[in-house]
Structures are given as C-alpha cells and as structure tokens.
C-alpha cells in the first residue's frame, strides 16, 4: 500500500516543479516592473546582509539593518506612498545580477559600484553614495591626505584596486598587502603601517566598531554606488531617480546618512556630487 502511495507522489512533485518553472519563466519575461510594484504596493530590494553600516543582519532583531535598508524604505514610500512596503532579499556580488534578471528582486541596492561593464547588463540610477578610496589612521596620526603617505607604510588587501591606486597617488609609499580587511586592520593596530586604505564604506564600518581610528583624506577615487534595475525598466528607473532627488531635497537622505555615518570620525558626507 505504501509503495503505491509513493508512486502517486511522483507525478505530483513533477507537476509542482513544472508549475514553479512556469512561474519563473513568466516572471523573467520583460514585464513592466513598475506596473507590478504599483499594484502590489511592494518593492523587493536586493540588499547586502554582511556589510557593516550598509546592510547587516542584526543578531538581536533578526532583521537586516543599515544605511541602504533605510534608504530603500524611504525610496519605496516616496514612490508608492506611505502605506507601501519594502521587502528585502539578501544578495551577494555573485547572486545579485542573476536574481534581478530572473525577477526575484525588482532593484539592487547593494553597495554596487557603477561600472561600464555592469551597465551593459543592468541600468543604473544616479549615484546614491559617493564611494571611493579613502584612508584609515589612528586618531593621533598626522596624516591628513593621500600625499602625506609618501615614504610611509600603507596597508591594503591583495588584489584590490586600492593597491594599484597607491602607485598613482602616493608613488613613494611602501604598500604591504594582506589577505583580508581583518588582517590588514590588525596589522594597523599592531603598528605595522601608518595607514590602511580601501573603499570609504569598508573603512567607515571598521572605524564605527573600533574607537581611536578615523578616516582622513576624503575620497581620492570616484567609485560611486548606484541602484540597478533590469534593462528596459525605464519607468522604474525614472521613478527611482526622481525619488532620489526628492529624498535628498526633503532631508530624509541627510537624516539617514547622519544616522549611520554621523558617528564615524572623519567621514565626509557629500550630498550632491
């Protein structure tokens, strides 16, 4: 009797798989995403859940919290009205574009730098965060600018553009390279170098967690973050750009930046780049 039951289950499972597959095919077809989000009053955002200050899974609340989360909520309300909801899906640099392409998320708001190669696959809004390379130094340091690094030792992570940029901006600096940010920062703590260099977002995350360290020198490269939507979603793109301008104008953007980056020593807010 049991055997028969199992055989009955098989076509059922296959049927379900087919229905699911059909659903995903339907979603991936180029529909007007803006119409959909307007009807459902929900925007599904692809966000980071592992990046301090931008989007980090909180152990206490079990929710993702950060600058990008608050910005996404503000933009959702700006576009769809007060009763609209923002849904969040965790993404990583590897998964975010596929998730956007197959329709699991409506937009990517996940520390994504606007680059020409990426722009071939997705459409970017205007920048929402002026990311770029910066410097992290101890509070007592006399280093103020990337030029001060000549003749000093700078700590960076292997294989990042930060290393190449040092040759351009401070050719006489000695660069020590490590395997990850944790190691590079520990080396800075141990006095193995005078400054650590990488994206300002990463450095701000470190500085917010470790007292006695500050960001200096502003950003000496421009690698701004933008919101990405699927190719052809012009309506949604325009709405997002419009909403970005509005949240900047009405002070919401400023409030969110203050909330997350206000406590980071030396972090320079650039609102209208």
């Amino acid at each position: 009797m049991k055997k028969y039951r199992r055989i009955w289950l098989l076509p059922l499972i296959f049927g379900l798989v087919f229905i699911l597959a059909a659903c995903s095919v339907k979603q991936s077809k180029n529909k007007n995403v803006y119409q959909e989000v307007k009807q459902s009053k929900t925007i599904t955002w692809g966000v980071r859940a592992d990046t301090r200050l931008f989007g980090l899974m909180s152990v206490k609340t079990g929710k993702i919290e950060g600058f990008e989360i608050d910005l996404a909520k503000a933009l959702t309300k700006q576009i769809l009205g007060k009763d609209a909801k923002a849904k969040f899906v965790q993404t990583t640099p590897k998964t975010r574009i596929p998730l956007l392409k197959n329709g699991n998320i409506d937009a990517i708001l996940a520390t994504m730098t606007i680059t020409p190669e990426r722009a071939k696959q997705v459409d970017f809004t205007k920048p929402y965060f002026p990311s770029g390379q910066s410097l992290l130094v101890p509070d007592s340091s006399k280093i103020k600018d990337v030029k001060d690094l000549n003749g000093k030792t700078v700590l960076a992570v292997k294989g990042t553009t930060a290393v190449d940029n040092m040759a351009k901006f401070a050719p006489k600096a000695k660069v020590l390279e490590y395997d990850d940010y944790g190691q590079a920062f520990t080396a800075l703590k141990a006095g193995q170098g005078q400054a650590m260099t990488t994206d300002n977002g990463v450095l701000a995350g470190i500085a917010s967690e470790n007292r006695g360290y500050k960001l200096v020198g502003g950003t000496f490269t421009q690698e701004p973050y933008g919101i990405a939507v699927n190719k052809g979603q012009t309506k949604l793109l325009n709405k997002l750009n419009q909403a970005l301008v509005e949240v900047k104008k009405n002070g919401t953007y400023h409030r969110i930046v203050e909330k997350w980056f206000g406590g980071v020593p030396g972090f320079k807010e650039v609102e209208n780049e």
Partner: protein
Amino acid sequence: MIGILTSHWSEFITGFGNTILCSLIALFFSLVLGIGFALLEVAPIKFLRIIAKIYIELFRNIPLLVITMVFYLVIPQFFFKVSGFVAGTIGLSLYTSAFIAENIRAGINSVGDGQMEGALSNGMTYTQAMRYVILPQAMRIVIPPLGNQFINLIKNSSVLAFVAGFDLMYQADVVALSSFQTINTYVIVGVFYLILTLPLSYYMRYLEKKLN
C-alpha cells in the same frame, strides 16, 4: 608562462632571495635550538627535561601561522616593532626546532644505553660522553628525518606571505592577483621552490651515504 616570468622578474627574484635568506636563518637557529632542547630532553636533571617538554609540545602543537601571527601582531602592541620577515623567521625557527629536537632525541635514544655506560665507566664526564660518543652516532641516524625537516622548513617559509614578509609566496599572490594568470604564476613558484629543495634533498642523500 615565460611572459609572466619576464614581466614580473624582479618580484620573483626578490621573493626568491627573501625565501632563501629566511630559510637559511631559520635553518641555522632551528638546528641550534633543536639540538639544545634534545639534549635537555635527555638530561639527567628532571627540571630541565620538563622545560624541554613544555617547549617542544608548545611549538610542535600550535600551527606555524598562529606562532607567526603572535610575533607579528601581539608582540608589537606591547613591546617592540617586529617586521613581517623577522616575525616569520622567528616563528619558523621555533616551530621547526621543536620537530628537530624530537628527531634528535629519538636518535640519541636509539644509541644503546651501553654506549653511555661504557663511556662513563671509561672515565669520561657526561658532557664528554655526549659530545664524543653519543651525538656522533645519533646524528648519523638522524640525517634522513632531518632532511625532511629542512625541506619542510623551506616550504613552510611561505608563511611569510601572510605577514607581508615579501617572500616567494607573497610575491606570487600579488602577481597572480594583479595579472589574473593564477595557474602560470603558481607553477613558476613551484619551480622556484624545487630549485631550492631538490639540491637540498640530494645533498642530504649524499651525506647519508657518506656517513654510513
């Protein structure tokens, strides 16, 4: 592959140089420390034996990377600055010395008890007996395992890559990540290590034959 070798020649050569330098220094100190602690381990005084045991078990059972990291990151916060190269070389010396001490102790133990008793009853002091009777016989037995340790030491010198010690492996990481020719780079680095380790293992073989 030749292209990446010629275009990053200076990186590879500095790395190669630093690896050789680190290996030579660590080889010398680990051998000296190893013999020293092996002698302490078989010493007739219990206190010395305990000290040797603690030292050997400590450095033999902690990963080399951890020992090196302590010298690179912890010591500078409290005492004095240690560069990556120095931290790596110290870590490598201590780590290898623990293994060498165990090898040499095994060698000493394999020389029969009668040898020591005979030497002592012929009027030699303990030191003399060790120096002229036990150690020369022990060393002959220990040569093959010592060769293993030396080869391991050279390969383990790649720990310098983690503490920015500018050795061969550090340069390889940098070259691989900047040129995106990962496989080619590590094959070249493998050949560089062979240039160091193959002659060494042949020399150990030769030494083994000569002493027997």
